[in-house]
Structure formats: C-alpha cells, structure tokens
C-alpha cells in the first residue's frame, strides 16, 4: 500500500460519508478505489450506525449538567476533575462508572425531538438505546418486552454506491 492509496481512499470516504451533501460535482471527481475496499466502505457506512442514548438518560444528564452550571454561576466550589477517575463524579453527586452495579435497569424510551434533530444529520442511521434497526425505514418499531424504539431514515444509494 502506498501513501497515494491511502490518500485516494480518504478522499473516497470523504465523498461517501458526505452522502448527498457532497453534491453532483463530487461524482465526476470520484477517486479510483479498489472494489473490495469500496464495497466494504459502503457496507460499513450502512452497518456502523450511530447510537442514541435513551431519552430518560439524556434528560437526566441534561438536568445534572444544569445543576453543575448553576453551581458554577453561583460561585459554588465545583472542583475541576483533575484525577480523571469516575469516582470524582460520584463524589460530586453523579453516577460515574462505579454506579453501574448498583443502578437498576432503565427501560429506554423515545428520544427527544431536539436531540434527534441535532444528532441525526439526515443521512446517518441512528439507533436508540442499542436497538438494531437495519432496514427499518423512518418508522418507530415497538419492541414488546424490551421497550426499545428504533428508527432509521431511508438512505438513498448514491451513484457511486450503485456502481459497486
């Protein structure tokens, strides 16, 4: 493999991952990439979806952040986290990694509309709370028992994807 190969692949990935945002001009300048690498890239683009935490978690953490922010505004002592250890958060009232064992299982729910808009850039698959949603097009799917919801926007194949 030469550096040139790596640069070509990088350029290809830029266009592939940009999706429709790359624009038609990008098609004319599509870099030549080995078919095996290109097809694998297309596959990973589809299967490596972005996950979204549960609405409940997201809102709980938002409240926690607001508490910390208000404490900062009040001039309360908010120790900078220099240790890098999760325990520092537990001491400050957060959950932290050490809270895993003691915490009850949370049934994941719908994501907030605000965060959906921010996190889903329009062409990425997005999963909620770990549900696998390959092939599910723009629909909420009820999961009896699990209480998980997932959806995925339709992802139009781009010209270079169809060429593979």
């Amino acid at each position, binding site marked *: 493999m030469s550096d040139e190969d790596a640069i070509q692949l990088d350029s290809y990935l830029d266009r592939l991952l940009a999706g429709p945002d790359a624009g038609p001009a990008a098609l004319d300048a599509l870099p030549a990439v080995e078919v095996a690498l290109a097809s694998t890239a297309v596959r*990973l683009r589809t299967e490596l979806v972005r996950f979204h935490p549960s609405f409940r978690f997201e809102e709980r953490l938002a409240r926690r952040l607001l508490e910390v922010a208000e404490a900062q505004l009040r001039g309360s002592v908010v120790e900078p986290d220099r240790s890098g250890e*999760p325990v520092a958060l537990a001491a400050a009232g957060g*959950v932290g*990694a050490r809270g895993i064992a003691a915490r009850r299982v949370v049934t994941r729910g719908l994501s907030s509309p605000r965060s959906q808009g*921010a*996190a889903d850039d329009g062409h990425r698959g997005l999963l909620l709370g770990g549900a*696998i949603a390959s092939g*599910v097009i723009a629909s909420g799917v009820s999961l009896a028992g699990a209480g998980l919801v997932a959806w995925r926007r339709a992802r139009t194949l781009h010209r270079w994807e169809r060429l593979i």
Partner: protein
Amino acid sequence: MFLKGRERDEATARPLPLDADRSAVEAARRDPRRFEALYRKYVAQVYSFAFYETRDHHAAEDLTEVVFLRALRSLHTFDERGVESGSTFRVWLFRIARNALANERRRERRHPQATLDAAHDVAATDDPAAAVVARDEADRAWRAIERLPEERRRALLLRFVDEMSAREIGEVLGRSEGAVRVLIHRALRAVASDLSEPGRDR
C-alpha cells in the same frame, strides 16, 4: 509532540478548520447553562463512541456522563488555537472521551467484570426473517471490526460512526493526518479480507 518531515509539512500546509461551535462555546463560557446546546448536539456522537468501545449501554451512559461533566467543568481550559487543546470543540470533546475510556479500561483491569454484548440484546424489525439476515450481516461486520488492533478499530469507528476527517481523528488520537489515513486503509483492508472469507467468524 515533535513531527517529522512530511508530517510537519502536512500539519503546516493546511489551515486549521474553523470551529463551527465557536459561538456556542463562547456562549457557554459566559453562561454555563448554555452548555446544553453543545451537549444536545454531541450526546449521540459521544454515546456512540462509548458504546462501540464498551459494547455495553450502561457503561456507555456512564462514560458519556463523565465526558460531558468533565467538559463543562473544564470548558475554560479549552483553547481552539492551542495544540494541546485541539483545533475544535468536537476534537477536544473526543479527547476527553478517549482519556475517560482509558481511565475506565485501567479500572476494569484492576476490577475485571463480565460485560454484556449489548448489541445482541434486542433486534428491532417487523420482519423476523429480514431481522435474522440483517443481524447476521451486522454481527459479521462487528466481529471483523473487533478483531482489529485497538488503534485501527478506533480510527475506523471515528471515521464511519462519527464522520470525523482524518485530520480530526489525528488530533483525537495524537497521530498525524497521514498516519491516520494509513491506519484506516489498513483497517478497511483487514475488514474486507475478513468479510470475504466464508465462515471466518463462525
């Protein structure tokens, strides 16, 4: 960090990217409550990074919490012009995530626990047959990625899941842009080879 020949040229030849979050960062510095906008924007990206690294939703939630609390508390230290701080808020945030993950890994080594493969917890589709096929395909890809060395795997995930550029990934991982391109090329080739072998992951 000292850069060699080509890497140095690469680093100096291209201007630093504009930080799309600059105004939000400045607002959050003036009023920490405004940090929520940055949190909402990046929570899924950070959570995804954490989940792909830990394969456990609870661990990913905890890591996400650590990252955002640390970012809020340390926002005054973020300097988009500083080499150590990263060129953008997103890069800086993912550096925090990388460090938090490293801390968690060290803690796990001291106190090992069995983890769940959360991706196998549930399947979501109306069509059970399609679900089986999709899940099998996804499983194969996951296993191929899991077999990659850590740095290659992380570079690949940041590229595909978080859609970072090679330059951004380099800033997160502390590598040059050229080195990241090579990492990704090798990672993709390894995954392609793995997926092309029938029964490799059975």
